[in-house]
């Protein structure tokens, strides 16, 4: 969860930085915009770009949070495979471990987290499935003809991931 918390904290930092940039531009403070892209930017153009940047930041945060979540989950699975190394003869166990570890990278993430349904609950799994759909929509260029079934903001994505990770931490303890 440390990496996920760190990404979310950085997102909040950037969001408030954009907020302060908006306030500075609004107050037309002399000289503060010099040698930046804002120097010659008209007010309306700034407002439009500012609003777009806020939306893009939200989308990037969802992408980044989910990427970190996916990595953590695959790593947890890899650790579980350690048991394969105990297969005798040792060389065979090592081979099965190597092949299985590589294969995990190709498993669909929704299939992996669904295996934890007994610990995280159906609602949590369903929410994560919707986050995956939204994340895929962003990652594949936001196709306007094929919109995701529901939209999501970074905090809701963070809460869904946090709830899931806390649930599986309990069974690992």
């Amino acid at each position, binding site marked *: 969860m440390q990496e996920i*918390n760190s990404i*979310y*904290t950085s997102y*909040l930092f950037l*969001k408030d930085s*954009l*907020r*302060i*940039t*908006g*306030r500075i531009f*609004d107050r037309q403070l002399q000289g503060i915009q010099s040698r930046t892209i804002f120097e010659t930017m008209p007010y309306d153009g700034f*407002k439009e770009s*500012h*609003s777009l940047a*806020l939306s893009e930041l939200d989308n990037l945060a969802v992408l980044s949070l989910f990427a970190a979540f996916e990595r953590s989950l695959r790593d947890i699975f890899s650790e579980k495979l350690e048991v394969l190394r105990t297969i005798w003869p040792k060389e065979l166990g090592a081979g099965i471990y190597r092949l299985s570890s590589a294969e995990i990278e190709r498993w669909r993430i929704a299939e992996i987290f669904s295996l934890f349904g*007994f*610990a*995280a*609950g*159906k*609602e*949590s799994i369903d*929410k994560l499935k*919707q*986050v995956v759909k*939204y994340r895929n929509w962003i990652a594949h260029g936001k196709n306007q003809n*094929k*919109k*995701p*079934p*529901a*939209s*999501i*903001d*970074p*905090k*809701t994505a*963070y*809460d*869904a991931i946090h*709830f899931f990770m806390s*649930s599986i931490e*309990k*069974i690992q303890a």
Partner: protein
Amino acid sequence: MKEKKVSGSDKIIKYNERLSSLYENVIAWLKEAGVPCVPLFEDLLLSEDQVGAYTVKKLLIKQNSDTLAKFVPVGVLIIGAEGRVDLVGRSGKEILVYYSECGSETTTRMPVGNMVEERAERIYGQKREGWHWIDDRIIGKQPEFDKDIFLALLERIN
């Protein structure tokens, strides 16, 4: 208990009613707080995959020629909620979502020794029906959107 299926058009009707009621509250709160402003409504066309295209009202809170804030509906299909509207100001935006009264419960089964313990939990906790603000801080919850929160957010987004 089995959930009752709600059609796309029913969802839109409910969403519009909930937005109208939110706007009525906001206008009353502004009046009570003595904020000089004029509310204006504009049509906004939204389109979502499972419900199609529909029109909703956007509320603009005008102060002379400036816009102090606007409520911009985002959609009815929202993960974990039944509609979203963004409160947008000059420097940022805040997210409001509509929660139904109880929300769905999730059952988890944790192995405890040789036994399995069943627990019923809600990801977002028990919520009262209505509009809630998504407080985006790490430990932030989703408090009910009321007058105090609205006036604080007006400062935050400007």
